[in-house]
C-alpha cells in the first residue's frame, strides 16, 4: 500500500481578475466551460479525506470567482479536512468572508504583489492593492490563521525590509516571502524578474534579522530562488509522495506545471476514483521512488532529500524530464542555468517589457 497524500490542492478555476507577471499557472489553461461542477468537486474532496489527506487547499486562478467556494469549504470541513483558501482577495466582501468562516475555513492566504500601491498594481496588471488592504482588515475580525504571501524578484527584492514591515503591519501570523519560481508565465518574464546574485545574497541577512526580531509574533517562510541554489528544491516534496493536485477540469496531477512534460496522460478525477489515481495511475508512478533516476542522482546521497529536484524544470531547461534538475551544482547541465543567471542588478533606466498573464478562453 502506498503512503497517502497529505494534501489535496484543488485548483477550482483558472479564471483570475489579476494578470500577474509571475503567475505559475500553465500557459495552456482550462476555460470556464471545462470546469467541474459543485457536485464533482465535493465528491473529490470527500474522497481525498477517505484517502488520507489532512489538508485541502482551495486555489486557482482566483477560487472566489466560483460562487460555490463556500460549499467547497463546507464539504472539506465536514469531511474532516483542514481548509485553506489561497486568494487574491478580489471578489471578497466582509459578508462573504464571514460566510466562508462560518462554513469552516481554517486558514486564509492572501497574496500581495508589493507593499506600495503603484508597483503592486503594475506586477498584478490590475488595480488590486487597495482591495487587498481592506480584506486584510476583515480577516483579523475572525479567529482563523492568516498568512500573507508576497512574491519577490529583481524589481522589489531590494526593498525586502519594507515588505516584511508591511506584512507585520497587516498583523499576519505568517509571511511567506517567495522568490519567483520559473514556470508558466514567470518563465516568459524571467529576464525582468530574476535578481542578480548580489541582490539575492543581500536578502539573506535581512530575513535572518527579521526572523529574530519577529520571533513569536510572525513566522517567516523564505522561498529561495533556486537558480542560485547549490542543490535543487524537493519539488512538491517529491513526485507523488505527499501532494495531489486536481486542475479546474478534473485532471489529476503531481504538480501544477506537470503539463509541460510530454507524454503524460493525466487521469480525470471526475471519472476515476482518487485512490486508483493515486495508487495505480502511470502518471503518479512515473517519477516515484528512485528507479527512474539517472546519474548523478542515482548514486547521490541527497536523492532521498531532494528527490532529484523538479521534473518540470528538468524538462524546461535540460530538455529531459528524467534528468537531474539542472539547478543542481552536480548536474551536467548546470551551465544552462548559469547562462540564465543575471550578472548585474537592475539599472536605473531598466524598464521591463512585461508579458501579462491572460485569462483562459471559455
Amino acid at each position: 500500500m502506498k503512503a497517502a497524500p497529505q494534501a489535496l490542492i484543488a485548483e477550482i478555476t483558472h479564471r483570475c481578475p489579476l494578470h500577474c507577471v509571475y503567475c505559475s499557472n500553465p500557459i495552456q489553461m482550462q476555460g470556464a466551460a471545462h470546469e467541474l461542477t459543485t457536485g464533482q468537486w465535493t465528491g473529490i474532496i470527500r474522497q481525498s479525506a477517505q484517502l488520507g489527506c489532512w489538508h485541502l487547499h482551495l486555489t486557482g486562478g482566483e477560487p472566489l470567482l466560483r460562487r460555490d467556494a463556500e460549499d467547497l469549504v463546507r464539504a472539506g470541513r465536514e469531511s474532516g479536512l483542514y481548509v485553506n483558501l489561497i486568494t487574491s482577495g478580489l471578489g471578497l466582501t466582509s459578508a462573504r468572508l464571514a460566510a466562508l468562516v462560518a462554513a469552516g475555513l481554517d486558514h486564509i492566504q492572501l497574496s500581495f504583489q508589493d507593499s506600495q500601491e503603484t508597483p503592486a498594481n503594475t506586477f498584478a496588471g490590475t488595480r488590486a492593492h487597495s482591495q487587498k488592504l481592506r480584506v486584510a482588515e476583515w480577516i483579523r475580525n475572525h479567529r482563523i490563521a492568516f498568512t500573507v504571501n508576497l512574491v519577490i524578484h529583481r524589481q522589489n527584492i531590494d526593498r525586502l525590509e519594507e515588505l516584511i514591515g508591511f506584512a507585520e503591519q497587516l498583523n499576519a501570523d505568517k509571511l511567506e516571502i517567495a522568490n519567483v519560481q520559473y514556470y508558466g508565465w514567470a518563465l516568459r518574464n524571467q529576464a525582468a524578474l530574476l535578481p542578480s546574485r548580489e541582490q539575492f545574497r543581500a536578502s539573506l541577512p535581512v530575513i535572518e534579522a527579521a526572523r529574530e526580531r519577529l520571533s513569536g509574533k510572525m513566522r517567516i517562510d523564505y522561498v529561495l530562488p533556486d537558480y542560485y541554489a547549490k542543490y535543487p528544491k524537493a519539488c512538491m516534496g517529491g513526485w507523488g509522495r505527499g501532494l495531489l493536485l486536481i486542475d479546474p477540469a478534473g485532471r489529476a496531477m503531481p504538480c501544477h506545471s506537470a503539463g509541460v512534460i510530454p507524454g503524460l496522460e493525466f487521469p480525470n478525477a471526475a471519472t476515476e476514483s482518487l485512490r486508483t489515481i493515486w495508487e495505480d495511475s502511470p502518471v503518479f508512478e512515473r517519477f516515484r521512488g528512485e528507479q527512474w533516476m539517472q546519474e548523478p542522482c542515482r548514486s547521490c546521497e541527497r536523492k532521498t532529500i531532494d528527490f532529484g529536484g523538479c521534473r518540470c524544470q528538468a524538462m524546461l531547461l535540460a530538455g529531459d524530464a528524467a534528468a537531474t534538475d539542472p539547478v543542481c551544482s552536480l548536474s551536467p547541465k548546470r551551465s544552462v542555468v548559469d547562462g540564465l543567471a543575471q550578472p548585474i542588478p537592475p539599472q536605473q533606466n531598466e524598464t521591463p517589457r512585461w508579458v501579462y498573464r491572460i485569462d483562459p478562453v471559455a
Partner: protein
Amino acid sequence: MTGLERRPLLKPGCRLSPAGDVLLIPEGVLRLQGPATRIVQSCDGSKTVAEIVATLLDQFPAADQARVSEETSAFLTKLAGRGAIEFV
C-alpha cells in the same frame, strides 16, 4: 513569571482533528500520542501549565511529578515553536 504560570492558548487556525489524534496547523499536522491530546485540549488560555500538569497527575497518579512537569513543558515549547500555541 515562570514557565509554569503561563497559560497556553491554541493559535487561530490550529485545532484538533475530529478524532483527536492529530493537531491540524496551517503548515501541516502534528501526530499526538498518549496524554498529548489531553494537553492540547487544555490549551484554552484559561489554565496555567502548572494546572495542566496537576490535572495530568490526577489522571496518572503513579507518574513522577517532576518528569510530567518537565515533559509537559517541553511539549508545549515544541508546540509554540511550530506556531501552534501562544502563551497568554
